[in-house]
């Protein structure tokens, strides 16, 4: 099983983009303290995102006719790896580039493509995704926000989303809402709508998290009027579209690098204090070895995307292993530093450690809880 996941090599032309990209990133993060860089894909910097767009690092997998770069998942792998491993602030373009763009390309009308995709590729159209609602959690089919189609073909949207990442910075939300039937119909009757977040009737309330940041928000819809072309894809097919979108979300190398800024700061600390006892060496090596394997697994999943497959089970497998690793890193590094209580520790490292420790539970929320992912794997194994 899973034999198609094999070692892959990035094409030379994709490797070749690293130096210029790296220079751009270094310039952007030069003044960012480590604990800010540790935020990585929660770090928001609209100017940097636009700069990436101008330099041609966004919309990589979108066709050139829509302003994209016409390259493939391997190129995107390189860009994501460089951005995340350096701790660059990517929240400004992340969702649009990774999920909304491909979704619009796949399910959108020609008009929608022409309208949104070039702006996404320039880093100028910021998207968020409205899935969870109060009480729904992983049970997405239980959404109760509702859009009624009007006589003119437009939509009247009422309801509420919660845990929406970056809603307060975004221009648009792609919302999963009920357009027909009742919540007893579960997956039936759901659709995806593109909601202009500047429309009247929308209230966005940030949710502050335990680190003091506000990446999530609640979004309230009260008689929000949307044009007919707000519908993306087919009415009633929202569930199917979301499942495809989630599979894509789970495939990237972002499942490895969430704790890497902390790890690198810790390695520099070990180097600075010259600590090289056996326990230290083994921990460093164990984390590096796991990360190396995960990186190759991620690249192998990417290769399946390049081959035109939809490696849902493989991506879930990699993500579950990857988030376990990412969540273990702050626990292990914390244990290591506090195992040497007479060694001076840079406050910036400690602050970063605690930030990552506190936010780590969120790593296994993004794109499906552990139980959900393991259920997908079990199904892939033929167990259900």
């Amino acid at each position, binding site marked *: 099983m899973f034999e198609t996941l094999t070692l892959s090599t990035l094409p030379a032309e994709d490797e070749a983009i690293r130096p210029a990209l790296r220079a751009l990133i270094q310039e952007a993060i030069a003044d960012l303290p480590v604990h800010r860089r540790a935020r990585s894909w929660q770090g928001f910097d609209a100017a940097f995102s636009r700069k990436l767009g101008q330099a041609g690092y966004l919309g990589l997998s979108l066709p050139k006719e829509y302003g994209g770069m016409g390259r493939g998942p391997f190129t995107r792998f390189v860009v994501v790896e460089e951005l995340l491993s350096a701790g660059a602030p990517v929240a400004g373009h992340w969702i649009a580039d990774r999920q909304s763009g491909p979704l619009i390309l796949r399910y959108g009308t020609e008009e929608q493509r022409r309208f949104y995709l070039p702006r996404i590729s320039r880093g100028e159209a910021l998207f968020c995704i409205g899935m969870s609602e109060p009480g729904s959690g992983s049970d997405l089919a239980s959404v109760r926000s509702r859009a009624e189609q009007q006589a003119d073909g437009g939509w009247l949207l009422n309801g509420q989303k919660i845990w929406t990442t970056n809603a307060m910075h975004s221009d648009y939300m792609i919302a999963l809402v009920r357009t027909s039937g009742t919540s007893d119909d579960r997956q039936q009757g759901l659709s995806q709508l593109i909601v202009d977040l500047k429309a009247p009737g929308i209230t966005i309330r940030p949710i502050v998290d*335990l680190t003091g940041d506000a990446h999530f928000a609640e979004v309230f819809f009260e008689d929000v009027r949307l044009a007919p072309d707000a519908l993306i894809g087919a009415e009633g097919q929202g569930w199917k579209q979301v499942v495809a979108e989630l599979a894509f979300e789970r495939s990237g190398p972002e499942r490895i690098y969430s704790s890497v800024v902390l790890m690198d700061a810790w390695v520099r600390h070990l180097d600075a204090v010259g600590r090289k006892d056996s326990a230290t060496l083994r921990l460093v090596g164990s984390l590096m070895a796991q990360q190396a394997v995960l990186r190759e697994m991620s690249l192998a999943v990417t290769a399946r995307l390049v081959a035109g497959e939809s490696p849902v089970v493989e991506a879930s497998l990699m993500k579950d292993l990857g988030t376990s690793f990412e969540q273990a890193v702050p626990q292990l590094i*914390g*244990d290591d530093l*506090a195992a040497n*209580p007479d060694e001076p520790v840079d*406050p910036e490292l400690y602050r970063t450690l605690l930030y990552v420790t*506190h936010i780590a*539970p969120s790593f296994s*929320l993004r794109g499906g809880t552990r139980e959900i992912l393991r259920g997908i794997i079990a199904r892939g194994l033929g167990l259900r």
Partner: protein
Amino acid sequence: MDMSELIDPFARLIEDVCTPAAIRAIEQGDETASLWNAFVESGFLDALVAEDAGGAGLSLSDAAPLIALLGRHAVPLPVADTMIARALLAAAGITAPEGPIAIATGTGAVPFAGVASHILSGAPEAPVLTEAVAEATGVHHDTDAYVAGVDGKALRPIAAVVRALLISGAAGRVMEMTVAYANERVQFGKPIGKQQAVQQQLSLLAEQAVAARIAGAIGARAGLQPALADAAIAKHGASLAAGQVAAIAHAVHGAIGISEEYDLQLLTRRLHGWRLADGSESYWAGILGELRLGDAAKSSAQFICGA
């Protein structure tokens, strides 16, 4: 003495004065005096001071449930540390100040130093008291802080036991909150606590919470100058549990658990801080390993029973 005569009023006191709102206020930098005064007036700060020095003369084992209660409610002041400090100071004939005392045992962040008036360092039999000059850690809502220029390494075992007891209290509360949440939260048409995978995780959480409590009790059994092995067993077990308890609790709670307005994080941030303070699990494992290999001819059972 029937311990419930002590525990129940202490629990009521904490529940009255140390609400989640009060914790948040102090974490945001509000004044600490009114909360602290409640503890001063309660008389509990001298619970461990010898009777002939005007205290209640409790043993650390007797006081262990009180310290666990402080952890259980995430009390954001060094009440337990001050209890220890006042007992050590009294035994050394030093008059204790009225304010909160934090115990500094290493170069890292000192628990509660950001809200302490004084710092205890030195050794159990020769405690050193200094005014608190602390530097903030920069960690969000942290009451821990850095303290420079003191050496309290010799206090690490007793401080570790305090931390283990605080962890055990917090872990027990986190267990109860998480079980309650799993029973309430409905997903896919039934409480998530009915899912076998969630049940298995909660069982692990419960095992760790109980292990932390037993570990803490081992640390407390020898009083204010714990055997090094006992302190090691206590802090190792509690720190090991702290990480797992926090991780499982957050996994079960999902997104709500990491929002600031939900109370779980008041406890899990403490669990992580206490896990690291005064030596992590691996620090104390190393100490205990050295003791064990220094006595290699003994069987493990003999070593443990004699520990």
